[in-house]
């Protein structure tokens, strides 16, 4: 557990005395989209990410989990610097992204890489893989000449276990798993410190997912690359972030944060509990302990008009008056963070197999 999280008005909460400095920090980041609704009406403001603060350390794996539309992808795009947040700071190695010089920004763009969900769309369809991989290397002057670039590309291909012959192929000639590996290769060629992987396995055959996850774990370990793994799948999140952290998002807000194993074994936030209820568990020991959490409503409220108070209250079975008026802040709970007014009073969950 090594995160320093700033909560609203509470200053810095030192969750763990980790001497390491974070490579990437988000400070109270808001990302609002404006949607025009005609000439006279006020544009709708959609808070895709609201007041999110988190730190990512060197070599850390952070899983960001949430339903579709909760702002995970937006968060990813904010982290890689492609979206300018409407409020808050993004610090890379302690430097504010908006104040970086051209040169620093260039460096940042190499150091933080993105791996997208749709591996087919993420590769230029009219270029061979040779072009897609060597181009950036040459352009960024990471290699002095073509031969050197090719050597680097070969090394990266070895790393992601793709044979060198595939280089002359076009993206459509490869399988989804192979393309995802190529995306990983393209990312590691930039020698990044952090890779934001936006649902990298959701479009891959289930039988091939594990190999991509293992590849990510290998890159994390051997190259010490930090990963932000965005997903809606607890199973893969738990697998990839084994010793890392997890961040649960709901309607643009972070509702729970902490060590993956601990958070998933002792979920505190009712939303997370409800989500876990929906996941079938193969272990009968755990399945027995699992409770059903009857949600008041299945519908997710509109992001354009989030409910006042706690954003989860219209669906939450535990909600009381305060939940409807006051927005809960992230508070330390159970060695992690949880944004719920009643977290202390709620029945404790334990999904650990006692064996």
């Amino acid at each position, binding site marked *: 557990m090594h995160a320093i999280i700033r909560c609203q008005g509470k200053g810095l909460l030192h969750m763990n005395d980790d001497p390491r400095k974070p490579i990437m920090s988000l400070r109270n980041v808001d990302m609002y989209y404006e949607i025009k609704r005609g000439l006279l009406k006020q544009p709708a403001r959609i808070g895709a990410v609201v007041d999110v603060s988190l730190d990512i350390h060197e070599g850390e794996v952070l899983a960001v989990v949430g339903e579709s539309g909760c702002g995970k992808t937006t968060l990813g795009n904010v982290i*890689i*610097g*492609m979206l300018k947040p409407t409020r808050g700071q993004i610090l890379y190695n302690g430097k504010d992204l908006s104040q970086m010089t051209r040169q620093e*920004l*260039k460096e*940042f*763009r*190499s150091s933080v*890489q*993105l791996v*997208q969900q*749709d591996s087919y*769309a*993420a*590769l*230029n*369809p*009219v270029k*061979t893989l040779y072009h897609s991989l060597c181009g*950036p290397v040459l*352009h*960024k002057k990471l290699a002095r000449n073509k031969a050197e670039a090719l050597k680097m590309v070969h090394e990266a291909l070895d790393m992601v276990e793709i044979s060198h012959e595939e280089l002359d192929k*076009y993206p*459509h000639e490869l399988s989804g798993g192979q393309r995802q590996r190529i995306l990983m290769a*393209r990312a590691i060629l*930039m020698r990044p410190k952090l890779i934001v992987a936006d649902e990298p396995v959701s479009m891959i055959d289930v039988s091939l997912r594990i190999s991509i996850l293992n590849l990510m774990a290998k890159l994390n370990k051997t190259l010490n690359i930090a990963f932000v793994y965005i997903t809606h799948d607890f199973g893969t999140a738990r697998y990839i972030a084994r010793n890392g952290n997890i961040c649960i998002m709901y309607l643009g807000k972070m509702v729970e944060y902490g060590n993956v194993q601990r958070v998933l074994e002792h979920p505190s936030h009712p939303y997370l509990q409800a989500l876990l209820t929906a996941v079938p568990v193969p272990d009968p020991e755990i399945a027995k302990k699992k409770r059903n959490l009857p949600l008041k409503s299945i519908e997710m409220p509109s992001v354009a008009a989030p409910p006042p108070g706690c954003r989860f209250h219209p669906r939450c079975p535990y909600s009381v008056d305060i939940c409807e008026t006051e927005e809960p802040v992230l508070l330390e709970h159970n060695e992690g963070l949880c944004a719920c007014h009643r977290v202390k009073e709620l029945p404790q969950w334990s999904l650990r197999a006692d064996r």
Partner: protein
Amino acid sequence: MNYFLRKLGTSLLNLIAVVVTIFIVLRMMPGDIIEPMAREEASRLGITYEEAYERVADRYNYNPQEPIYQQLVRYVKGLLRGDLGTSMLNPKNTVVSILSVALPWTIFVVSISLIISFILGMQLGALMAIRKRGIINNSITFYVTIVSAIPSYIIAIILSIIFVYQLRLFPKSGVYSIDVTPGFNMPFILSVLHYSVLPITTYVITSTGGWILNMKGSSVHVLGSDYVFAAQARGIPEKIIMRRYMKKNAMIPMITILAMAFGGMIGGAPLIEGQFQYLGMGAYLAKALGERDFILYQGLLLCISISVILANLVADLLYSKLDPRIRLE
């Protein structure tokens, strides 16, 4: 190779269908056009009407009294010999000789205007895709709206009122001045260019809008794709993304449209060429239709159809060359 042969086969089938259709449709038009000519010929040469009719029919390689399949056989036999018949109103000129005069002028004007409007369209369309708001975008949109609302012949008339009749900068009609001798000499080339300015300008004004919008749509699509986003995230400068990613990929469909547009424009725009009396395919087409010169009309239509079919073939082959995803099975 297999792919090429198959495409070629399809084109040949198209061609046969076109020949038969044009032939049959024109024959279904009412009236015997040989009859008045045979009457005139009979009285002029003092021969019997039947004999004159036979002669006239032979001259035009067309006898309306034969059953239609025999006419078709006669016509196709002529085609295979390269004989498209003779102009009815101008019996001295064969259709082939008229085509060989008209076609080069149309190709000349059409290719220059296509190149200009294509390049303009690509640049402005890409620019519009990059700058979503702002004065450039608004003024181009305004221009495109206006131009697509005005028919091309109105623009031709406006241009000729201003530049021919008021300013007297350009000639009223023709393809080159009578004072120069055709050939590879400077005065001739300058004269040809001088005479073609207004038709080309008209084509460019009317067709650039379409190119701009097409390219804009295609560019916006490419800009929104994940690989462009990935390139931006990698820190590839905007300039390179525009040139290597956006323009290149967005232009692939444009180039095939270009090939097809070329084929389609060989018909010339009868009204534009007519306004400037520029003697290309369009002008002859208008003339042949107006004077009921069916043989010439048939020949011109056939030539236009062939160019459309050829252009489609080229577009197909180009597309598979440019886009590796369409690579032949």
